[in-house]
């Protein structure tokens, strides 16, 4: 596996505009900072080996090492990643209603884990206006404030770095593929620091086809609507080809073709639709918007799901075979697209 530091990260990721703002390099040192949804290398560091490079999801991933560390087994080249089973799910009656994107599975699981003490805090992503604000939530009541899809690329992984620096433990982390790949690499302690303790208890991945560059979307929306009034966003299933922005004054439909230009380049080389490096992965369930697709990847994840069902926080149902076909096709297509672009990058 290649090693590198600030210089290599700058050359291989920032100069090529491949950063997807996951925050894996932020919160470790004073050299990288985040401002209005953008990760910025502020000063030059001349170390040959740094966590910034080792933790970045865009510098190359040692799949075998991560798989052993995460799943205690060799890496399985499955387009959906390593998993035990896939079900459909939605929030149970014991979860207070919130503004869920779909079935509310993530909010239900996190609320449950906080209430029963499985975790001391959850790393979630809130927004101020449109600017993502990742944070550690410690009360189940605050979880719902962070519910629903953000679309703006967020530096959520930086919070895990900060938590590790502070020696925190037992955190649940919710994130997209790039964010959780970063988290998985943080947890592997790549520089073998002796004082490192893993701050994370479990992770929940969010299906993600792409995110939006915060600064670009702010600029795009300026003049169209007031970002402060935004309550949610959604991409309705094809053939709608629109991007829906919900505000206090109703909703605005924007052409998806325009919105796609706001996707960071880093998303184009992401091969991971379902967030493979997670204990559980959650996404929409096509056709039934009040349900989620739930991929159970680890025993720990399965145990949490079972406990949540028992406690009335989560309801499960079977995942139809044809949906699995759809999901596999979608995930496979994302991988193919990413590989094609990556190969072009290399040549």
């Amino acid at each position, binding site marked *: 596996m290649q090693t590198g*530091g600030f210089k290599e990260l700058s050359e291989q990721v920032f100069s090529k505009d491949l950063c997807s703002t996951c925050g894996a390099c932020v919160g*470790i*040192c*004073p*050299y990288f*900072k985040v*401002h209005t949804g*953008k990760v*910025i290398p*502020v*000063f030059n*560091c*001349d*170390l040959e*080996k*740094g*966590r*910034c490079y080792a933790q970045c999801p865009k510098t190359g991933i040692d799949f075998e090492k991560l798989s052993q560390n995460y799943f205690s087994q060799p890496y399985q080249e499955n387009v959906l990643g390593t998993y035990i089973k896939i079900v459909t799910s939605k929030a149970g009656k014991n979860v207070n209603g919130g503004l869920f994107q779909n079935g509310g599975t993530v909010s239900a699981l996190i609320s449950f884990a906080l209430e029963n003490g499985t975790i001391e805090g959850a790393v979630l992503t809130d927004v101020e206006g449109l600017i993502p604000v990742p944070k550690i939530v410690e009360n189940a009541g605050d979880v719902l404030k962070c519910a629903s899809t953000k679309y703006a690329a967020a530096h959520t992984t930086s919070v895990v770095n900060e938590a590790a*620096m502070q020696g925190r433990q037992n955190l649940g982390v919710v994130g997209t593929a790039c964010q959780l790949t970063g988290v998985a690499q943080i947890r592997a302690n790549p*520089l073998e*620091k002796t004082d490192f303790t893993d701050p994370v208890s479990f992770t929940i991945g969010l299906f993600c086809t792409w995110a939006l560059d915060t600064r670009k979307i702010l600029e795009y929306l300026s003049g169209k609507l007031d970002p402060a009034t935004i309550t949610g966003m959604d991409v309705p299933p094809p053939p709608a080809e629109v991007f829906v922005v919900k505000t206090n004054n109703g909703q605005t439909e924007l052409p998806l073709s325009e919105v796609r230009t706001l996707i960071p380049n880093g998303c184009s080389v992401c091969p991971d639709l379902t967030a493979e490096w997670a204990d559980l992965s959650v996404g929409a369930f096509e056709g039934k918007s009040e349900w989620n697709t739930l991929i159970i990847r680890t025993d720990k994840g399965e145990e949490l799901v079972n406990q949540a069902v028992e406690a009335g926080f989560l309801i499960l149902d079977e995942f139809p075979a044809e949906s699995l076909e759809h999901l596999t096709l979608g995930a496979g297509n994302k991988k193919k697209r990413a590989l094609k672009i990556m190969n072009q990058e290399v040549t």
Partner: protein
Amino acid sequence: MKSIAVPKSDRRYLVMGNEAFARGALEAGVAVVAGYPGTPSSEIVESLAKVSKERNLYVEWSTNEKVAMEVAAAGSFAKLRSLCVLKQNGVNVASDFFLHLAGSGTRGGMVVLTCEDPGALSSANEGDSRHFSSMLEIPLLEPGNFQEAKDITTWGFELSEALKTPVMIRSVTRLSHASGNITFGDLPAIDHKAEFKHDGLRLDPDTGPVISMPVNYKHSLQQQKIQKAIEMFETSPFNTYSGPENPELMIITSSVCNLYSKEAIKALGLQDRVGILKLGTTWPLPPKLIEKHLRMTDRVLIVEEVLPFIEEDVKILAFELAEQIGIKKIHGKRDGHIPTTGEINPDIVIGALCGIMKMDYIGLTPEYTEKANAHVSLGSPARETTFCAGCPHRASFWHISQALKMDAKEGFVCGDIGCYSMAALPTGFNTLKTIHAMGSGTGVASGFGKLGQFGMDQPVFAVCGDSTFYHAVLPGLVNAVHHKSNITLVVLDNGGTAMTGFQPHPGTEKDARGGEAQQLNIESICKSIGATVRVVDPFDFEETQKTIFELIQMKGGVKVLVMRQICALSPEKKATRWFDMKVDESKCIGEDCGCNRFCTRIFRCPGLVWDWENKVSRIDDAICVGCGVCTAVCPVGAIESKEVT
């Protein structure tokens, strides 16, 4: 020396060149003195300000050099002797008024004394303002040693009074800032009486209005004065020759190059072969004197600093005289014997003499040089150009540079002249991208701020100091406000003209003589002309960063951010330490990932040192001034500050 106003005696005094100039003005009975601080000129006004009460002088640090020259001129118009002191940059600032002053003429003797900086030891240029004398047609004097620095100044006032035109005296760093032994003359009476007569005949130089019109008449009058100056210069005791009757080579020189030439001739043992014509009156050149000396030799070497000013005039005269005196070989800058940039020194003159006289000279043997270099590299610590320990500019540029990088829109900062010019270097995180004249950062930014029309959307910042704000920023700022230029001006207010030695300015409560002055307020001025104004303390990290981002976000128009924190060296601060600083070595992670010597490698305050042996940072107690800023810089909180009670 303590006071330059001691009575005449037989004693020889060791004085700085600038004190000799000041003494010369006192002996001439100067009454009005005005200037703007600038190295290497500042000590002249300062030493006159010190004796202003006992010598009944009016002395001021003016807002800028043009105003200083106007203030001094008023003294002259009222029949007083007056002195305007500036450096080469200042001559340019004052030049518009200077041109008109040369046209209108003066009454009381008026000397414009410029102390220049060949080699730019303390400047952003090495401008040679001798050319102003020929361009504006006013006499130019250049003293060739310390005694002459005093004597030529005294005579300059007499010359000005005799010709009714301002007289320019030019010094350079090595004369102004070096010291020499001189004897003092008498000090005149101090019962100065000022009266401005203006009701006489329109063209009467003593009683009429003082104006440069009608231009043709006044200009021809001015040229008659120059003819009279030439006559006086032909016999001036400040032009001297020393050497053989018919030298193989004659050096024509002026100012400190006179001393360098003497040293070079001595070093090479050429006393019997090379002579020196030392000129004290360098414009207009006295043609008969030059002819007399050209006749003595066939070869001439002209030694002067920066541009070939004397060289060109001598060549014109030699050409005009060629029929009578024969063709002379004239060496100097145009044939490459003397460089046209940087300071001259005895070695350069030795090199030129060796080349012309076909001699070899080894000043230092290679063995000696090698030995000396080895000792130098062993014994002397490496020093970089840096802001002082505890300098508020370091904190200010820390914030500005980070904010612009985090904003990531290729924003940049236009700067000008002050200690903060060093922000173009690593000590200021390479923040400044343009540096020109005083106030130019704001004017240039005003222009950049209007380039949106051509697609430029980079954030534009300017910085200036508090003294510079009053000196030359105001017109640029007014221009930016009027044209709705989209810029942010950061005023780095450290409470005085710090770079040149804390001279007062319109924002301070005292004037040059220590008397009470009307104190102006930067933020009120900026608000009154319609700028959005914020004031922060750059040592308050959180508030400062928040405010900079707030201003960057604000669309359109001029924003002014006053970053106010007293200079670490300010006499007002009285070397007070606010905090005792200490590095907790158990917390310092040094070279590890997560820090990589952030405080000593990036922040680089000289008060922080890296302990190479133990791989931790330390506070150098001898240098640290206890500002406490680095506490906020350390990524792991290893730098502790304890408030001094």
